[in-house]
């Protein structure tokens, strides 16, 4: 089941684990924005920074690539679509398909950016407890009037917690349906509907049980939250990141 949960917290004692979640959330937003604007020189800089983060957080690149294999497949699809549909200097033509030099460059750039953003999200999720992400989101939303920050924070925390459980249920349901020969049905919509209905029903039943269990443990929106403290290292990291990425965003 672990292989189905790439975006989940992994405990550790690295500097990234110790950093304030609010800063990490801000860094994710800033670097993602910068990657959208970054070109041929900016992306290698950001990628270098990402590799440093992965190394500091002691996250295995091989394990990450293994866990992101389905996303990598999506990137291949994106790359192929870009490479074959962007007009420009023709590299080769096969029947109706034309591969262009501009398409290749554009495909690489888009995939690079997407991979960078997803890996940043991975680093954030792997080094930050869901409760800290929730507290950071609550902190951001708190000043906005009429927005129930604590409720949104709790919902976020629960979503993060239950994604692996829902994946597991989907896998179990799919296996049970395969055992009863659903693969003999060629209509993908029929198969999707059968899986979807069973999965949604189970998810709602679990949600009901979860509510009862939370009530039993005195759940309330006014709870003790995690302590978020901005340390010197957070400000230094912010300074370094601003110096690196502001030219990419504004130049």
């Amino acid at each position, binding site marked *: 089941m672990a292989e189905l949960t790439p975006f989940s917290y992994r405990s550790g004692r690295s500097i990234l684990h110790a950093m304030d979640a609010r800063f990490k959330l801000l860094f994710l937003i800033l670097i993602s924005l910068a990657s959208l604007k970054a070109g041929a020189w900016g992306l290698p800089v950001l990628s270098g920074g990402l590799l440093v983060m992965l190394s500091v957080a002691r996250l295995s690149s091989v394990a990450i690539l293994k866990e992101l294999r389905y996303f990598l497949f999506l990137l291949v699809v994106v790359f192929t679509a870009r490479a074959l549909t962007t007009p420009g200097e023709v590299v080769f033509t096969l029947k109706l398909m034309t591969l262009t030099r501009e398409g290749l460059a554009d495909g690489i750039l888009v995939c690079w950016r997407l991979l960078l953003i997803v890996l940043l999200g991975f680093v954030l999720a792997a080094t930050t*407890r869901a*409760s800290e992400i929730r507290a950071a989101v609550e902190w951001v939303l708190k000043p906005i009037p009429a927005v129930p920050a604590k409720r949104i924070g709790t919902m976020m925390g629960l979503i993060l*917690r239950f994604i692996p459980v829902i994946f597991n249920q989907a896998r179990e349901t799919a296996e049970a349906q395969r055992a009863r020969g659903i693969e003999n049905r060629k209509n993908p919509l029929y198969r999707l509907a059968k899986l979807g209905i069973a999965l949604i029903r189970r998810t709602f039943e*679990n949600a009901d049980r979860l509510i009862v269990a939370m009530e039993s443990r*005195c759940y309330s929106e006014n709870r003790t939250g995690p302590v978020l403290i901005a340390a010197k290292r957070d400000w230094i990291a912010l300074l370094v990141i601003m110096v690196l990425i502001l030219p990419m965003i504004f130049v």
Partner: protein
Amino acid sequence: MIVTENLSHRFSNGRLGIDRITLSIGAGAFVVVAGPNGSGKTTFIRHLNGLLKPTAGRVLLDGVSVSRDVVRARQLVGMVFQDPDSQIVGETVYDDVAFGPENLFLDRTEINKRVADSLQAAGLSHLAEERPHLLSGGEKRRLVIAGILAMRPRVIIFDEPFSSLDYPGVRQVLRQIVWLHQSGHTILVTTHDLEKVIAHADRLILLSEGRIVRDGLPDKVMKETERFGVREPCVSRLGLEVGSWLN
């Protein structure tokens, strides 16, 4: 400790869940509530900490009505549900145990102390930073128990605690339950499988169709269980004394 007076619950579809249950459970007791599926076991225990409101009657905890102070009732009476996966809410083992104390709005130092104590009591200290969904079935049950212990309850209710557990898992959880009883907690266990736990109980209550049909010493009540859809332990059928699964 726990007193119920003519406790009844009728569901919105008109079905009677429990019917005029009156009983008293003293502090430090170890009570097994048995009955077949649909006999009202879960409905009954959910009244003891205010998860369900009675249609008639009332529940008193140390003389105070549950409906008057539900938060107090939930602190006093911890509940371990059947399916651990749907009650674990934390991203890590530590986070999950801290969930209850955080809801009680305790300060962080007290929360940390309670979490450490509870994890130690459940034998899970070494897994504090582990992701809960990676734990084994027995470890998940112990995590749920640790989450309840962190709220410092005096009564702990286990709803079918041995379902879907293998033999080592059953022994782990049973050992935990017995230890909790020995450390002064009042224990209520609902089950339809008496064999695993009855050796440790000092009272057996049989429910059938929402009513108490037998209530007394396990040795005496056990002989009549099959009349009400609960299997009599094998050794009891043979006229032998039921032994502990921990031996």
